[in-house]
């Protein structure tokens, strides 16, 4: 039996996890770092457009401030975000961005040598700092490189899947992992565990998320009794290329790109006359979807055009080289000469593991940060450029708080809980992998994708959601009858995917149920049968708890410090 002991365990190799590891290691803590893929492969690296901070470098942004950033974030999130958390994030933003610059991020520059900024959706000033359209890649590599300087304090276990928490008396004592290299289960014991496992976009078929963003990291604590919050708020990014659903950065519109329908009309003027293409994502996504529903898709098909041609070759080569490469690789078109066919696709999970502004959860010693967590800073709709910011700010906070809690305690020596937890997990997986039924789990996943894409999408209504909920529960039943999984031990991805599909089903159920019950429209959650926001009834967070009979919903108030809800106009 393999048991590893560390003062602190961090799960997740994306930006939030890497930043948390860096912070804990800088503070001299012994860290065990677990990631199901090698850290630099994480989905954070796909982020393109930039990271928000009121640096006031842009000539039009001299009057910008952390407070203005907080207001934009609150309004962008349709007033569901907790304003104390938002202010912590926006106050920290300039410090965080400069720190990343000091760590080596090759940000693009203004002529005066300062970090370049561009306009982004829902922001009052141009405050999105960028490194061409590869900001996420640069940030992820810089934080990873920081870790390389502290390897004596951090032990990286890559290609280990975290699959369960070890908890007792409402305290987290470690995790159980599936070692992909050997196929064995291995336990990790620690004084604290940080989860930074990313979003759950792969519940949808049409998603910009990577194959890895399955939401298993949200289900694990959910199954162990940690509540999850606001899962019905799913962001659809307006501009994903058709077919592969790969992201075309909001930075393109920030730089001045147009959205055009079949009549060649810049239709955003009818939806957000002031902000036009750079209205918040929920508004632009709904606008595009409305155009498609009303038959103004290009050639009668389900897409519109993102047009960057008028920006010129020089600007595109300099500021948007990544999306140019994506168009060439996957569509075979050059955006300098041809408009790009796009349609909205699932992009971000606003909800996640319920935690407070210190990243602590209901379970002692269990922290969460990044997209898998819901602090909540994004409320009902995240602004572009705020997700990279959240991962770094709260990654640091989680790393700091956990480090302070565990420092000097040494590696835990009490392994008494491990044996029982391992035995239980082994039996559970043994059952899961040997059901000997007839269903192909991947077909179940494909059917789930169809349900989520069609019924739990940008526009929702009672009928669709009820149908979806029934469909998901049917799939869960069918999942009990899946075929036996291949037996090999070394690098058996069949086993990990099966586990991920199980997680997909449970998370989808929480999303759908939350959406069905919430009878209002707010941010990313748009009900055609309840088209307006209802602050009296619904200005509250949805909390879901796991029970054997499905999720149990309750509600929690929103923290309002400065800004009372107002009408959202752009």
């Amino acid at each position: 039996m393999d048991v590893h002991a560390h003062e602190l365990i961090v799960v997740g190799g994306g930006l939030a996890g890497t930043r948390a590891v860096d912070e804990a290691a800088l503070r001299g803590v012994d860290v065990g770092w677990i990631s199901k893929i090698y850290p630099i492969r994480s989905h954070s690296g796909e982020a393109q457009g930039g990271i928000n901070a009121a640096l006031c470098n842009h000539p039009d942004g001299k009057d910008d401030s952390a407070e203005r950033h907080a207001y934009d974030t609150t309004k962008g999130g349709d007033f569901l975000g907790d304003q104390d958390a938002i202010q912590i994030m926006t106050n920290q933003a300039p410090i965080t961005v400069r720190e990343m610059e000091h760590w080596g991020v090759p940000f693009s520059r203004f002529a005066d040598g300062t970090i370049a900024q561009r306009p982004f959706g829902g922001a009052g000033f141009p405050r999105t700092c960028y490194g061409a359209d590869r900001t996420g890649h640069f940030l992820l590599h810089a934080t990873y490189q920081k870790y390389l300087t502290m390897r004596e304090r951090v032990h990286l276990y890559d290609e280990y899947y975290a699959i369960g928490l070890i908890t007792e008396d409402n305290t987290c004592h470690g995790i159980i992992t599936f070692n992909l290299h050997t196929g064995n289960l291995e336990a990790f014991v620690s004084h604290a565990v940080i989860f930074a496992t990313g979003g759950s976009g792969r519940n949808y078929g049409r998603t910009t998320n990577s194959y890895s963003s399955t939401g298993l990291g949200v289900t694990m604590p959910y199954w162990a009794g940690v509540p999850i919050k606001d899962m019905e708020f799913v962001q659809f990014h307006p501009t994903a290329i058709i077919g592969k659903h790969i992201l075309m950065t909001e930075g393109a519109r920030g730089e001045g790109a147009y959205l055009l329908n079949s009549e060649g009309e810049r239709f955003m003027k009818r939806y957000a006359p002031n902000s036009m293409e750079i209205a918040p994502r929920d508004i632009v996504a709904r606008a595009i979807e409305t155009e498609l529903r009303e038959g103004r898709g290009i050639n009668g098909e389900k897409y519109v055009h993102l047009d960057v041609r008028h920006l010129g070759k020089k600007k595109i080569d300099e500021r948007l080289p990544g999306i140019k490469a994506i168009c060439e690789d996957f569509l075979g078109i050059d955006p300098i000469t041809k408009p790009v066919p796009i349609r909205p696709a699932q992009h971000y999970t606003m909800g996640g593991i319920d935690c407070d502004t210190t990243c602590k959860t209901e379970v002692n010693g269990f922290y969460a940060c990044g997209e898998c967590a819901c602090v909540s800073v994004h409320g009902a709709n995240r602004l572009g450029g705020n997700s990279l910011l959240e991962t770094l700010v709260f990654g640091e906070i989680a790393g700091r708080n956990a480090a302070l809690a565990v420092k000097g305690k040494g590696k835990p020596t009490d392994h008494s809980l491990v044996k029982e937890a391992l035995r239980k997990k082994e039996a559970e997986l043994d059952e899961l992998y040997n059901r000997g039924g007839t269903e192909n789990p991947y077909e179940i996943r494909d059917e789930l994708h169809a349900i989520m894409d069609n019924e739990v999408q940008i526009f929702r209504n009672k009928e669709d959601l009820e149908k979806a909920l029934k469909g998901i529960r049917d799939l869960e039943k069918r999942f009990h009858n899946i075929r036996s999984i291949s037996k090999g031990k070394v690098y058996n991805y069949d086993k990990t995917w099966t586990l991920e599909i199980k997680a997909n089903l449970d998370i989808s159920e929480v999303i759908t149920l939350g959406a069905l019950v919430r009878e209002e429209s707010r941010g990313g959650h748009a009900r055609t049968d309840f088209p307006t926001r209802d602050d009296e009834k619904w200005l509250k967070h949805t909390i879901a708890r796991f029970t054997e009979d499905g999720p149990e919903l309750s509600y929690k108030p929103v923290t309002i410090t400065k800004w009372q809800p107002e009408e959202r106009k752009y």
Partner: protein
Amino acid sequence: MAQIGEKAFIEILRYDPEVDRKPHYETYEVPVVKGLTVLECLYHILENHDGSLAFRSSCRAAVCGSCGMKINGKFGLACRTLVENIKGVKIRVEPLANLPLVKDLVVDMADFYEKYTIVEPYLIPKEIPEGKEFYQSPDDRKNVDGLVECIMCGACYAACTMTAWDKQFPGPFGMLAADGKLRDTRDSLGNERIINLTDEHGIWRCHDEFNCMEACPKHLSPTGAIHHLKRESVKYRFTSPKRNELVDAKPDTLPAVIPEALTARRSFMKTAFWGGTGVIGAGFLLLFSPLFNKPTRGWETGWIKVGEVPDVQTGKPVEITYKRQKWERGQLVSYPKRAYLVKNDSGALSAIDPTCTHLGCICYWDDAIRMFLCPCHGGAFNTEGKVTLGPPPTPLVLMNVKVEGGMLYLQEEVA
């Protein structure tokens, strides 16, 4: 080209360490749809034909670098390779080369990641500006364009013949990262980064085969980066007033942020500096000799005492090292050299200078195939020094050998 609606035949190298004694190929049929990628073919096979198929993937958008593999003989990303762009309906998929095979298309990347750390890919600034960012002009930022976009997919590493031959060569991607930091105006390490890369496993190993450039899915040029490093290295060799100090620098004078594991290597690199750049510099010394006050007198000839005679078995060359001296600026400088002692069937000893007669790389003895191999362009020689493979025009040079009083003496051929 596989048409939409038809089938593509994906031939995959399969190897399961728990079952197979050696790898074999298996072919699977995948229905072609518009925009189908090789990665999607692999998922189709995993989900519908064989759940045991192992391959890495994540972003499917050519930015995470997980799915580097060999597709119809070319290294690249499976997610970025469209079936409709491939000639013929048969597609052969194999794992990355130059890394140990673990299972199917999964290779052990540990060495690869380890080599990245060797080049110290992180920024080491002198002083951090308080409360503000470093100022860097747009032109200075442009300097690192093409060097910071690497996604570490391993395609260049697998395509590089130098990586294949020299297990300590950091690989094209490592050199690219090193040049990225060297050219970053915020970094303070400067020429120290070059010293780090000029030993016999460093930049001079690269012989401009451009395989890395051809393989790179991000259209980057590691060869160009290595060229820049080479130019800077030669410039530094002749211009730095502190070069002698740096050669003797002790690890404790280095910045504190460098991890311990690397400082050991660094100090080794420093002493090896003369061996690497120095050898190249030797050629330049002849060219520039009028610049120096005292004329050089070249290599010392005569017999060199190597030491006690080692135990040599017939047909199994033994590597020996010795120091050969050379006059440089009026002083004798010692250069470490290598030779191989060979015992022939009649029991007579001979010595072979392993300097390849093609372009001067140092060959090594490979016991498995019983030949001297050149790490640079695939030249090979037998125990007599005769050419058996590759481009070398003439045999390896034999040295004079004598044994006196139990001690071994060598003499290099005098031209």
